[in-house]
C-alpha cells in the first residue's frame, strides 16, 4: 500500500513538474500566468473592470454607494459592503446550476469582509456599496482574480479607499511551493492558499488555506505570494493609469469641443 502511494506520488510530480523544474505550461514555480486588466468596461455600472488571468475570465461591477436593501440591514453609522460572487453556468467543464451554492456564498462573504476594511464606509451611513463578480470562465484562482478585478471596479466607481486590494494564490505541487496554480495543478496539487493584501501596508485581508504545508513551506509560500501581490498591485495601478491618464492637450480638447450634454452620444 505504502509503495503504491509513493508510485502515485512520483507519477503525479513528474507530470506536473518536469526534470527542469518547469510546470505544465512552462512556468517556473515563482511565475504568474499572463494577466490582462481593463478598467471601465461596462456602461451601466458605476465602476467596472475585466481581468483575464491565465484561463480565468472575470468581470467585476460596482454600484453605489446607494440605498441599502433590505432597509433593516442599514447601518446608521456606516455603509455596508455587499459582494456577490457568481459563476456562470458555462464557466466550468460540468455545467454549474445557476444561482448561489455554499461555496459562492462563502467566497462572497470573505470578499465583502476584505473590502469592508479598506473602504471608508463611515462616509456613507445607511448606504451600501455593492460589488458584483461574475466568473465567465474558470481555471483555478477565480476568487483572487475576482478580488483583483473588484478592487479596480471600486476605484473606477470612485469609492474612497485606503488602498487598492491585490490578491494571488500560492500552492504546493509535490514538495515544490508554486505561485498561482492552474486547474490541473490545483486538482492534483497538495495545498492551495489564496491571499489578499493591502499592498501599501502589508495588511492581510483574506487568507484561506487547504492542503498541507509545513511551517517552513508556509514561510516560503508567503514570501512568494507577497512578492506576487506586489507585482499585481503594479499591474492594477497601470490599468487605472491607462484608463484615466490623459495629457493636458487631450483634456482641453475634450472640455472645449464637447458640450456636456452630448458627450456620451454616438460614442
Amino acid at each position, binding site marked *: 500500500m505504502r509503495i503504491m502511494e509513493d508510485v502515485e506520488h512520483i507519477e503525479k510530480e513528474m507530470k506536473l513538474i518536469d526534470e527542469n523544474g518547469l510546470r505544465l505550461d512552462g512556468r517556473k514555480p515563482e511565475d504568474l500566468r499572463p494577466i490582462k486588466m481593463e478598467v471601465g468596461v*461596462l456602461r*451601466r455600472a458605476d465602476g467596472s473592470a475585466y481581468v483575464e488571468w491565465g*484561463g480565468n475570465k472575470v468581470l467585476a461591477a460596482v454600484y453605489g454607494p446607494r440605498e441599502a436593501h433590505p432597509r433593516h440591514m442599514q447601518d446608521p453609522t456606516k455603509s455596508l459592503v455587499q459582494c456577490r460572487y457568481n459563476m456562470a453556468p*458555462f464557466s466550468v*467543464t460540468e455545467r454549474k446550476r445557476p444561482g448561489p451554492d455554499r461555496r459562492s456564498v462563502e467566497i462572497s462573504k470573505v470578499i465583502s469582509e476584505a473590502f469592508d476594511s479598506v473602504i471608508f464606509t463611515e462616509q456613507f451611513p445607511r448606504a451600501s456599496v455593492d460589488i458584483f463578480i461574475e466568473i*465567465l*470562465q474558470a481555471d483555478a484562482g477565480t476568487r483572487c482574480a475576482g478580488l483583483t478585478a473588484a478592487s479596480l471596479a471600486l476605484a473606477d466607481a470612485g469609492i474612497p479607499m485606503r488602498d487598492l486590494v491585490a490578491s494571488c494564490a500560492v500552492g504546493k505541487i509535490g514538495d515544490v511551493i508554486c505561485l498561482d496554480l492552474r486547474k490541473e495543478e490545483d486538482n492534483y496539487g497538495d495545498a492551495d492558499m489564496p491571499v489578499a493584501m493591502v499592498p501599501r501596508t502589508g495588511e492581510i485581508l483574506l487568507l484561506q488555506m487547504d492542503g498541507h504545508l509545513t511551517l517552513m513551506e508556509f514561510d516560503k509560500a508567503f514570501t512568494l505570494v507577497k512578492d506576487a501581490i506586489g507585482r499585481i498591485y503594479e499591474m492594477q495601478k497601470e490599468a487605472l493609469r491607462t484608463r484615466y491618464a490623459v495629457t493636458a492637450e487631450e483634456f482641453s480638447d475634450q472640455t472645449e469641443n464637447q458640450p456636456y450634454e452630448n458627450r456620451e452620444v454616438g460614442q
Partner: protein
Amino acid sequence: MTEMISELQRERVYKLVLGGTRSDGRTLEEVRPLTIEKNYIKNAEGSARIKLGNTDVLVGVKVELGVPYPDTPDSGVLSTGAELIPMASPVFESGPPRPDAIEIARVVDRGIREAHTIDLKKLCVTPKEKVWICFVDIHVLDHDGNLFDAASYGAMSALTCTKVPASKLGLQDYPLPIQHYPISVTAAKIKDVIVIDPNLQEEQIADARLTVATDENGDIRAMQKGLRGSFSYEEVNRVIGLALKASEVVRAKIKA
C-alpha cells in the same frame, strides 16, 4: 424592472424620433452596430459574446447527456435560461429569475424551437434512454435596451459554433445540426412613432413593443407583443417589413 426617466429626457427623446433621428444618431429603422465574438468561453461547447450598441450579452451553450422527455423519446432536449444579473443594471437584483428574465428566456427559446433551428433528432444517442441536452444560458452583462434581440442574437451565435462532445462516448465531436437561422427584430412604439432596436431611453418611454422573428425564406417564425400600448394592423405590417429588412444584415453576421 422600472427605471426612472425625467420628463425632460422623455420630451427630448420623443422630439428626436418625431423628427426622424435618435439620441444615438441612428435613423428610425437602423439597428445598432452588432459585434459578435464566438467561442468566447473555452469550457463551454459553444459560446458568443455579442454587443448590440452598448447592450452586452454573453451566451454559453453546454451540451450534456441526459434522459429524453417521455413524449419525445428520440429527440434531444433544448433548455434556455436567462439571468439578469445585478451587474448589468442598477435595477436588477440577485435571486431566482423574475418574470422579466423568464419572459426573455422563453421568447428566445420559442424563437429557436419553433423555427426548428436545431435538428433535435440528430441529438438522440439511445432512444428513450440517452440524448444530448443543450443548455443555453444567457448572461446579460450590460443593459442598454432591447435585451430580447441581444439575447436571441447571442443564443444563435453561440449555437452556430457549438460542438456536440460525442468524443465522451468514443465517437467524433460534431457541430450542432443547425437547419434554420431565425432572426428576431424588435420595434418600439413611442406615441405614434415606430423605431427599430430601441435603446434603453427609447424603451423607457415606449408605449408598446413588438418582436418579430423571421427566417432565411422571409417567413415569420415567432412574434411577441409587449407593454401596455397597442399596434394597428398597418403598424404590425410595417414592423414585419422593417424586421425582414434588418434581419438580413444580422443573419449574415451571425452566420459568418
